């Protein structure tokens, strides 16, 4: 069986969202780089894979997918095993909790944390733009409110969906990893259960392997 293909840069957060699932389930895959600076993501060839001209795109034989969370769920479902049951679809209630916290990452956590990553790292390093401190400050306020909810949850359960690691936890890795490279990493110190949860994610073999390819300092 041919390895699946993930189209995009191995450093990009949404590509890593897919790669961490591939690593967790032990699937064979190939990353096909898409050159953002050369606008390759807008080329007809790539738009045929992702009609919004974004990364990642994905291919498994005849099946083409886009949207990182949809791709990652497919990977988790296809390769589900006793060692890697990231979606818990055998249990109605557990699967629901995985879905809830996956949606929370998308609609509450990500909108608060990603502007900080863009303003502090991406804009200066890749676009030569100065950091918009107003955006950063507003996002930090939002993020703290979100982390309060996470702290309350993680004081009750070891992981977000329950006492088992799941797809919901893994979704937090890429953007949080880069957030820790910004000057605001210490925000997490005020939320001890969140900090312990983050450190346990960072110690997973899949996460360590991918972290090695993700820069912590930006030129």
């Amino acid at each position: 069986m041919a390895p699946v293909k993930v189209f995009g840069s191995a450093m990009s957060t949404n590509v890593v969202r897919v790669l961490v699932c591939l690593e967790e389930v032990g699937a064979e895959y190939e990353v096909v780089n898409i050159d953002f600076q050369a606008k390759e993501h807008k080329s007809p060839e790539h738009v045929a894979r992702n009609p919004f001209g974004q990364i990642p795109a994905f291919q498994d034989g005849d099946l083409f997918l886009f949207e990182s969370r949809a791709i990652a769920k497919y990977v988790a479902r296809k390769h589900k095993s006793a060692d890697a049951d990231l979606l818990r679809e055998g249990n109605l209630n557990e699967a629901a909790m995985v879905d809830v916290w996956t949606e929370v990452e998308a609609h509450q956590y990500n909108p608060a944390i990603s502007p900080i990553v863009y303003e502090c790292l991406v804009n200066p390093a890749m676009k030569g733009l100065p950091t918009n401190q107003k955006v950063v400050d507003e996002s930090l306020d939002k993020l703290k409110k979100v982390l309060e909810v996470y702290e309350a949850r993680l004081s009750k359960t070891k992981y977000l969906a329950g006492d088992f690691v799941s797809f919901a936890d893994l979704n937090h890795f890429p953007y949080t990893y880069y957030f820790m490279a910004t000057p605001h990493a210490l925000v997490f110190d005020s939320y001890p259960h969140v900090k312990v949860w983050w450190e346990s994610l960072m110690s997973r073999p899949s996460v360590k392997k991918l972290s090695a390819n993700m820069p912590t300092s930006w030129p």
Partner: protein
Amino acid sequence: MGMKVYGPAASTNVARVLVCLEEVDAEYELVHVDMPSGEHKNPEHLVRNPFGQVPAFQDGELILTESRAIAKYVLRKGGSQLLRECNLSESAVVNVWLEVEAAHFNSAMSPIIFQCFVVPMVMGGTPDMKIVEENLNKLKKALEVYEARLSKFKYLVGDFFSLADLSHFPTAYYLLGGPHASVIDAYPHVKAWIADIMARPSVKKVTELMKMPSV
């Protein structure tokens, strides 16, 4: 105790859950949450939805938030085929277009709905036309992608209706009922697809709930 949904039916995210309950003919109770008076920020509601939003959902001891997560739970419990979880490839494509709904359609429509409905009718203010214009442009770019897709297939995932299509109903309802409904005239396949969704019995039932005051 049966299933309970907490929130106003007129909220797009609440309506998304209600239509799934209707699709599987489930017995449920809709418990109104009065947002203009801030009921969604009360301690009682925060226990159910710690982000102070609607909907919240309860089934016995299980409490859920986030409309798309609740929708999936309801559909699975009701034995619905709208997720196609029996088929690996089909369920993946359902998830692709569910993500598109959230990331591209809803993200453009939500600020438009806020400016054109909530600001004038609930807050007594004037719509910010700059925000409306920016998001209409985003919406049109998304609709080009939808038009291309729906020119090839009857529904988003293929020739069968799925949650991916249904999830668009609440925002499509406000698009049709707002000042920018004519935007879809330029996208005939999208227009026909929306009409098809709106004609479903489950959708008709929920739109009646959405029109009722204080429901």
